[in-house]
């Protein structure tokens, strides 16, 4: 057992390397941070209940896209009986801020939806003009 020191030191180095991401995150203080999306203030009701939107907004958007582009239907009757115009830019982004709402969760979850390759963030359009 002459190599005990070497073995323990090696194990320590190994453990430190393996757990490095955990330490790094703790040091940066990002571990306990949620995506923290900024909710809109002017409207209280969304087109569907929060739980549904949280888990299935992408399905809803796919249905909207199908209805508008292929079926030519443009009105959506929400769960509470209100009628909305189906549209990502026109309806969703009227209340929600793309940067502070959509992007925050998407970045947190590590997903890159390709909606934005074509659909325009109205705030971006304003900036390009101004």
């Amino acid at each position, binding site marked *: 057992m002459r190599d005990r020191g070497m073995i323990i030191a090696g194990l320590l180095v190994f453990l430190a390397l393996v757990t490095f991401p955990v330490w790094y995150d703790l040091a940066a203080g990002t571990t306990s941070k949620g995506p923290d999306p900024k909710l809109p203030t002017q409207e209280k009701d969304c087109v569907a209940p929060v739980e549904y939107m949280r888990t299935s907004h992408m399905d809803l958007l796919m249905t909207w*896209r199908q209805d508008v*582009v*292929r079926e*030519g239907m*443009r009105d959506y009757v929400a769960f509470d009986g209100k009628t909305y115009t189906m549209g990502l*830019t*026109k309806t969703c982004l009227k209340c929600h801020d793309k940067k502070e709402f959509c992007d925050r969760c998407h970045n947190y979850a590590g997903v890159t939806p*390709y909606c934005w*390759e*074509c*659909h*325009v*963030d*109205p705030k*971006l*359009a304003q900036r*390009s*003009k101004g």
Partner: protein
Amino acid sequence: MSISRRKFLGVAGAASALAIAGKTSIDALASGSSTKAGGGAAAATRWAIVIDSSKCLKKEGCKDCILACDKAHNIPRFDDPKHEVKWIWKEPYEDAFPEQQNPYDDANLKGEPFILLCNHCDKPPCVRVCPTQATWKREDGIVMMDWHRCIGCRYCMAACPYGSRSFNWFDPRPHIKDLNPDFPTRTKGVVEKCDLCEELLAQGKPPACVAACPEKAMVFGNLDDPESEVRELLRKHYTIRRKPELGTHPEIYYIV
């Protein structure tokens, strides 16, 4: 496990007879259901545009319709003509109507720019060839595109005899002058073309080019309505269409 020639031919014959019988009954059923579903709507609307070329040529160098379309649909402008994206554009008379001229054509027509756009054909060849059904003909006659579904194979561009379709070789965003948030841009690798402003029609507005024309040279209307302005114009004037001999039944009419 051998089978005689006679037996094989018998079985094959019976199978094809069954297949034909099945196909006929399916066709009969399908045609019956489609008249039920689409009959009312199809009889109601068939959009078309009539362009009065003499009015169009009045204001020299006018590009109002093209600029209105650019603005409404976020159409990018590339310097290289090979990368051009166009929904509505100008072409000299002899290029627009190559088969309809004679050496003694009115000098007024020769070299004069004609306004061209997607003809929203009744029998659109682009729709036939699209492998993903990203382009299709709506019941009101608009040849629509679903850019979500376009895979950029460009079959439709090869099929279209009018050059109405453009391909996005580059990301168009940096090449759009005035970004309109109400309409999406396209992305690199998809085909695009005129959609007859179906997004404006849904709001009860006329297409952007028609609304922008200072001479009211473009008239938009419903061909299925005998009292409509377009039908009135078609009754009163002799009109030509682009390459009608191809059998695509273009629905943009030109008064010359």
